[in-house]
């Protein structure tokens, strides 16, 4: 059914179609509208047989979700930024216990300095938490991915984080096509846990495991992640056949045939980039977009196939790892080992700075003109702002334009005595 609604409401309606037994969350921007809407649906009876639990913190939200999931019901929660960080202990427990919780992360920067706007530093801080992490390029993609996420989580036996760009998607009013309840019921059977907590037949979950078996449990967890790759592909195929929506998947290619440069992007920037490369194509510049959907598990083989024999690869990253490099970079480098592809990271869009079509075009031209001098380069930098600080404190300045990391490091040699 076509509706013109806010992304958050679309997600709430999609989650409701999955008939969760428990929804528990603590409000934090930009996720709040999702659970507010779910709360209303439970209250009005639109969403039945579902317990909506108000709690006092994100730590409780994930704890209640763990309890509900261990009790054998389909559980959903949502968070962002500092809220996700406050959950972390429970986040790791959920995956260690193999509980198929689905959680939306309405991606937002992490403070300090306090910032409520979008980037990917919150979701990627949980890279090693043992959750599947699926990124969404549009609200339609996000809506559909949530429905697929429950099925993937329950088949794999691990929780899934659905990562959608905060504000940019959550607060955008767009045309969304919601599948019918009959379609979702056909696609997603009722949750049948292999074991669950029942006071009448008590079992223990989450006992202490010592050095004699801890490694082996971790290996089995890794095996589940490997198992997840084909499950994501199969569930995506089923969902696409049922709805006709081209959502989900491990990754998606746009304009990639004979592209001279391919950009790897996660999230809502993909749409902006598609428009930008269409405009570049009119000037004879061939740039392709790879929308990376699955970040954990990482689709190394699919990415290698998607890059093919393209020699210029740029990863557009809305985050980086301090004292190291782009967070996606090492994964892409591993996927492309031995292909001879030149791989660079373009960092932009931090803390809500808009990634414009012009940003994407700048990155493409920078690559095709062989201007990348460092593995990592920041784009759309207000150099004057940095210089106003560095000039006074250390007597150095940076040149205008994109900022490669080697140029930033060079300034350390020039500091006045």
């Amino acid at each position, binding site marked *: 059914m076509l509706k*013109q609604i*806010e992304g958050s409401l679309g997600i709430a309606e999609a989650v409701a179609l999955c008939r969760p037994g428990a929804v528990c969350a603590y409000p934090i921007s*930009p996720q709040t509208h999702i659970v507010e809407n779910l709360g209303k649906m439970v209250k009005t009876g639109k969403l039945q047989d579902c317990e909506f639990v108000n709690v006092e913190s994100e730590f409780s939200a994930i704890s209640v979700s763990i309890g509900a999931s261990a009790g054998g019901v389909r559980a959903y929660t949502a968070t962002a930024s500092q809220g996700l960080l406050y959950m972390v202990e429970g986040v790791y427990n959920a995956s260690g216990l193999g509980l198929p919780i689905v959680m939306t992360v309405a991606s937002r920067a992490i403070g300090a300095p306090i910032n*409520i*706007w979008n980037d990917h530093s919150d979701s990627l801080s949980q890279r090693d938490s043992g959750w599947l992490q699926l990124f969404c390029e*549009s609200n339609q993609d996000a809506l559909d991915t949530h429905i697929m996420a429950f099925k993937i989580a329950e088949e794999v036996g691990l929780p899934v984080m659905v990562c959608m*760009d905060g*504000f*940019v*998607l959550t*607060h*955008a*009013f*767009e*045309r969304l096509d919601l599948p019918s309840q009959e379609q979702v019921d056909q696609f997603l059977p009722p949750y049948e846990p292999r074991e669950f907590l029942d006071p009448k037949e008590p079992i223990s979950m989450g006992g202490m495991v010592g050095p004699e078996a801890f490694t082996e449990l971790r290996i089995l967890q890794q095996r589940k992640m490997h198992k997840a790759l084909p499950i994501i592909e199969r569930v995506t195929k089923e969902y696409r056949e049922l709805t006709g929506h081209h959502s989900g998947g491990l990754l998606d290619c746009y304009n990639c045939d004979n592209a001279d440069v391919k950009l790897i992007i996660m999230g*809502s*920037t*993909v*749409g*902006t980039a*598609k*428009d930008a490369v269409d405009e570049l194509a009119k000037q004879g510049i061939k740039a392709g977009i790879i929308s990376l959907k699955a970040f954990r598990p990482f689709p190394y083989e699919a990415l290698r196939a998607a890059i093919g024999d393209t020699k210029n690869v740029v990863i557009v990253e809305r985050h980086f790892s301090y004292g190291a490099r782009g967070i996606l970079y090492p994964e892409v480098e591993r996927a492309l080992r031995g292909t001879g592809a030149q791989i660079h990271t373009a960092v932009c869009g931090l803390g*809500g700075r*808009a*990634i*414009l*079509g012009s940003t994407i075009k700048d990155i493409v031209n920078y690559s095709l003109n062989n201007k990348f001098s460092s593995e990592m380069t920041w784009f759309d930098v207000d150099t004057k702002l940095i210089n106003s600080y560095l000039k006074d404190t250390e007597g150095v300045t940076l040149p205008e334009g994109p900022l490669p990391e080697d140029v930033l490091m060079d300034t350390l040699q020039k500091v006045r005595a």
Partner: protein
Amino acid sequence: MLQIRLHGRGGQGVVTAAEMLSLAAFLEGHFAQAFPSFGSERTGAPVVAYARIDDKEIRTHEPILEPNAVVVQDKTLLGAIDVFAGIDPQGFAIINSAEPAEVVVPDLVKKLPAGHVLTVPATDFAMQKIGRPLPGAPMLAALAAATGVFALESVQKSFQSRYPGKVGDANADTAALAYEYIMNLKNGGNNA
């Protein structure tokens, strides 16, 4: 693609207006998108919201830097912010004011084609029908009248579906007043 930027102040329903604009376009079978410029929401602080209308899927999520139309819900912003930054030379501007456009924004009137810069006393209309200074519906109706891209009835329907009952109907009445006002202006009537 038609790109519209809406300026106003917190509490005036700027974000709602952008959403209702996208809903009006949707009701007519267009693809539409609306989103706010996200910030700390405070009553009285300058607020910007965006809307796009197209006949194919809208993929971009960048803010609108070169609008085809600018809607200014609060005249006091004119001296404070460059609300018309990047406006299309063939674009439209609708300003909430009881004074003529030639008096309020003389430079812009010279810059854009004749009849593309219009004022409408949206707050006065809102006070008459809604009893509160909510100029969103009349501003959208004025935009509909000025551009012809979407119909008055769609603006009315969008507000009535969002606010069923008295509030939606009052918004619809306010929209009708603004629509007539601009049509009268365009046709060289009493308001001209």
